[in-house]
């Protein structure tokens, strides 16, 4: 049986009535011990009988055509083959469900996968790939840099009102240009695939976030029926968007395995990950704010310039949160996407907000400074009653609480005027920024099985990319069925299991969580029937059912396991309410007066994301967001050679993610909230909310410390010290 719910109406708070008390508490991830002891295998760690190893060959030119000269390597030790068939240009975009561009002999960026070399051992394959002769014909019309774009495509975003007029009517205005460099997801586990064929059927161990879509992408790329593809990804070592879409290693491994008639494993090198996998586009952003004498916004504008390869169905939604965060009658947006010969742009954690909120929240800080209004007060004054563009009502929105309660906990009242607090060689300052991230519910299915012995099983093709899916799905089932979470087994990451939302867009917990909730709810109904009570009166606790005047252990109500499928779909509440997670980020930084080096001393995040399912995993997500905020603010930048588009710093020695010492004390607090419109479990996404605005709090703190406004990210020392005395 399937318990199906289309989210057309707000739902009762059933999870506040169940009494097991294992949800909304901190609980460690059950798979943690497996991971730290090496017993949770990642894609590259599987071995298959007779397996060969493939290595990707990267294009050495920026634009043109190529042909590989197989004869140049055929005699090398261990050689098994060089394959170019069906090669995809880059990873698929999230939720694409179809093949990424397949270019034949065309090259559009330096580092594009052009072949997979297969040998008996990894070392041999790597050597062959290095020696393989490739004949290139180069085109000389590559454009690799924003400065080389002669015609920026027009934007088709509609205006609301007249922003120019508002700017001239305003008492205070801000009109600033910000730039951000491209970012890499830098997940710890590089992408990897092990492909095995059995006749027409392909089994592939991969490192992927959304198996349902990925299966379609693999099948479409290979030209086979999706029914013949089984994907397995029970453990994934971080994704951050980079594994939303199927990656080139999957196709390379599958094509080679088919041709050779034996299993083939392809693991991307770190350099490959920087080129063949989507990265976040560089942006230029023009921010305009027009405010009256009280700091109330009359209008705002956010126009952006970015790039991608041709035919990529994705643009960084830079202004995503700007549409609904603050009021103001007159609004203007613009998005210009140029085609550049650089690696494809795509989703990297919090697409849109990660960079759009830097500029918006810096501009708000500029406005606060100009108008002399405290940055928190300024934000409070501009919280709109209804969505300022659609007029739709908001669902739960605790932005004001996050700002004020966060400020209290952080000690915001100790903030001084910019440039006035100094400790030895260091300027000290505090900054704040709002956080907002649109909430999304996706269709998702799961099977829940309750056994007479009081154990349960949850099964779905959902992934756990280090986020805590195993933990929260087990907790939801345990809470609903009145069990210790230890008694619930969760099986994930296999396309043979019911199709889920996958991990992405911060929708996994609420979507997959709702499907488990629904499956368990159906089981509750059956148990109530058997107990002879109304389901409303049923109480399940510690393996015992109580209801009406009855009290029976589960074993007495069941002689066989009960399995129910839960199936959630988004519905009318998505139209009737604007749903988002909100929050506030606070940062205290020290800026070195000699060198301009910045140290983040402490950060505090006050987050409101509906029901918090597990305070430990949720806190970890927000920590990750804060650390990403530090990275985007201070250190992370992909450098493209402007002449070739080449990713110059294509490793983790020179692409600087924050190290431990860059991260000061991190504090996280949650605003207690239920979002009735979001899902039957009243939870919203949190993983990306933690990043939204976090970097802006850091750069706003830099301004408060030393009076230097950061317009070009990241704020490395060379962007700060020239402006210091």
């Amino acid at each position: 049986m399937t318990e199906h719910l289309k989210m057309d109406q707000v739902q009762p708070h059933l999870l506040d009535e169940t009494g097991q008390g294992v949800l909304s508490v901190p609980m460690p991830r059950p798979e943690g011990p497996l991971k730290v002891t090496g017993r949770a295998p990642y894609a590259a760690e599987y071995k298959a009988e007779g397996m060969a190893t493939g290595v990707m060959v990267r294009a050495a030119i920026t634009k043109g055509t190529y042909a590989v000269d197989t004869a140049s390597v055929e005699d090398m030790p261990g050689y098994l083959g060089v394959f170019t068939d069906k090669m995809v240009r880059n990873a698929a975009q999230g939720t694409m469900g179809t093949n990424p561009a397949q270019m034949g002999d065309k090259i559009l960026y330096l580092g594009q996968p052009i072949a997979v070399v297969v040998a008996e051992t990894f070392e041999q394959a790597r050597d062959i790939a290095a020696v393989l002769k490739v004949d290139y014909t180069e085109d000389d019309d590559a454009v690799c840099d924003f400065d080389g774009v002669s015609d920026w495509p027009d934007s088709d975003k509609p205006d609301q009102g007249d922003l120019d007029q508002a700017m001239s009517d305003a008492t205070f205005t801000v009109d600033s240009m910000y730039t951000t460099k491209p970012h890499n997801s830098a997940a710890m586990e590089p992408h990897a695939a092990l492909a095995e064929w059995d006749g027409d059927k392909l089994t592939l161990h991969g490192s992927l976030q959304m198996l349902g879509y990925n299966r379609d992408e693999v099948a479409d790329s290979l030209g086979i029926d999706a029914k013949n593809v089984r994907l397995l990804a029970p453990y994934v070592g971080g994704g951050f968007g980079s594994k939303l879409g199927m990656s080139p290693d999957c196709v390379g491994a599958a094509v080679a395995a088919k041709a050779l008639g034996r299993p083939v494993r392809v693991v991307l090198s770190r350099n490959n990950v920087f080129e063949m996998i989507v990265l976040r586009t560089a942006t230029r952003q023009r921010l305009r704010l027009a405010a009256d004498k009280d700091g109330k916004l009359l209008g705002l504008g956010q126009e952006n310039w970015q790039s991608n390869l041709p035919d990529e169905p994705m643009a960084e939604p830079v202004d995503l949160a700007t549409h609904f965060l603050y009021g103001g009658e007159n609004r203007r947006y613009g998005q210009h996407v140029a085609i550049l010969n650089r690696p494809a742009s795509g989703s990297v954690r919090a697409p849109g907000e990660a960079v759009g909120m830097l500029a918006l929240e810096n501009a708000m800080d500029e406005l606060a400074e100009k108008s002399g209004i405290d940055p928190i007060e300024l934000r409070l004054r501009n919280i709109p009653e209804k969505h300022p563009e659609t007029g739709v009502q908001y669902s739960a929105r605790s932005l004001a609480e996050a700002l004020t309660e966060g400020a209290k906990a952080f000690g915001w009242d100790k903030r001084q005027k910019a440039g006035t607090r100094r400790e030895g060689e260091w300027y000290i300052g505090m900054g704040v920024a709002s956080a907002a991230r649109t909430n999304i519910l996706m269709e998702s299915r799961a099977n829940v099985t309750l056994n007479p012995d009081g154990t349960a099983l949850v099964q779905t093709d959902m992934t756990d990319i280090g986020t805590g899916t195993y933990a929260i799905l087990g907790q939801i089932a345990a809470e609903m069925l009145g069990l210790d979470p230890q008694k619930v087994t969760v099986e994930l990451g296999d396309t043979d299991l019911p199709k889920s939302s996958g991990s992405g867009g911060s929708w996994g917990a609420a979507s997959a969580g709702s499907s488990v909730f629904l499956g368990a709810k159906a089981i509750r109904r059956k148990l109530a029937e058997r107990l002879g009570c109304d389901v409303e009166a049923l109480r399940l606790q510690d393996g015992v059912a109580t209801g009406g005047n009855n009290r029976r252990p589960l074993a007495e109500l069941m002689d066989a396991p009960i399995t129910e499928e839960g199936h959630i779909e988004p519905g009318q509440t998505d139209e009737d309410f604007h749903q988002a997670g909100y929050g506030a980020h606070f940062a205290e930084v020290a800026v070195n007066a000699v060198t301009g080096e910045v140290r983040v001393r402490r950060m505090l995040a006050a987050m409101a994301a509906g029901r918090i399912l597990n305070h430990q995993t949720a806190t970890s997500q927000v920590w990750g967001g804060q650390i990403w905020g530090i990275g985007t603010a201070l250190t992370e930048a992909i450098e493209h050679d402007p002449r070739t588009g080449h990713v110059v710093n294509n490793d983790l020695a020179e692409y600087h993610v924050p190290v431990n010492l860059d991260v000061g004390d991190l504090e996280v607090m949650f605003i207690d909230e239920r979002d009735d419109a979001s899902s039957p479990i009243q939870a919203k996404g949190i993983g990306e909310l933690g990043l939204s605005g976090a970097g802006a709090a850091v750069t706003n703190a830099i301004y408060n410390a030393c009076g230097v406004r950061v317009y070009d990210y990241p704020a490395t020392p060379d962007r700060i010290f020239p402006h210091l005395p």
Partner: protein
Amino acid sequence: MKSFDYVRASGIADAQDTAGRIIAGGTNLIDLMKHQIETPPKLVDVTRLEMTEIEQSAHSLRIGALVTNSDLAAHDTVRRDYPVLSRALLAGASGQLRNKATTGGNLLQRTRCPYFYDTTQPCNKRAPGSGCPAKEGINRILAVLGTSPNCIATHPSDMAVAMRALDARVEIESPNRGTEMLTLDEMYVLPGDDPSKETVLEAGDLITAVHLPQPPKGKQTYRKVRDRSSYAFALVSVAGIVDVEDGKITEAALAFGGLAPRPWRDGAVEDVLVGEAPSDALFDKAADVLLQDAQGFGENDFKIPLARRTLKAVLAELTGVTQ
């Protein structure tokens, strides 16, 4: 990776193998081999040789070539008498790397110029005559002093900068030239016409030790400016040793990292300082001399003013002048 032979040296003679390539900690060489930037046909593992001791004599400290960066940084005598060296070591790489990295290997590590690391790119250092894409490309971390039209790479070592300030000498056992003691300026060569040649060492030459003369008088410090607080190479670094007596600077030794193809030391800078009373104006004069021939290549222009600021702050710290 290319296949290669491996031999384990059991004596110095084995190590002096002109057909082989010495491997110590391997933290740099193995990376270079994986990328096939270096493709030695034979590796000579010297890690079993007796070069792991730090020996103190009346006039010097002799550091065996195999002493790890971690051990050297933690050595009591080094911490007490040569703190500039200890600090420089601890400012380099990461704890894991320092546990593996050796004194000899650190001296001979190769540049981190990103074009050098990518075999799809031209690079005069890796493929002589192919060109230098860094000069007009991404050169934020590259050199502003001692460059040549053919190469603007920096030497990445922190340790060597401190050793340069300490007047260290490198003990070399050469199959052709016998035992040699070279200063770092004698050992490292500037890029000139052939950036692939970084030192005067020849195939088979073995670094056996580094000698530090008696501890210098005065205060010592190492200051490193970098893009993140740890695990990043220097944008600019300064190793400073300055002695002040009766209000005058009596001795000064200054070496710089992140600025040049080798640890950079310029006696003229020290000449400006010695005999004078420390002051902000004097420090500016010293910086003027250091940077008079400095040339930026666009992205790395900032290193010139940053070097001035860092040098002045180091001098202020060592002389007690408040800026």
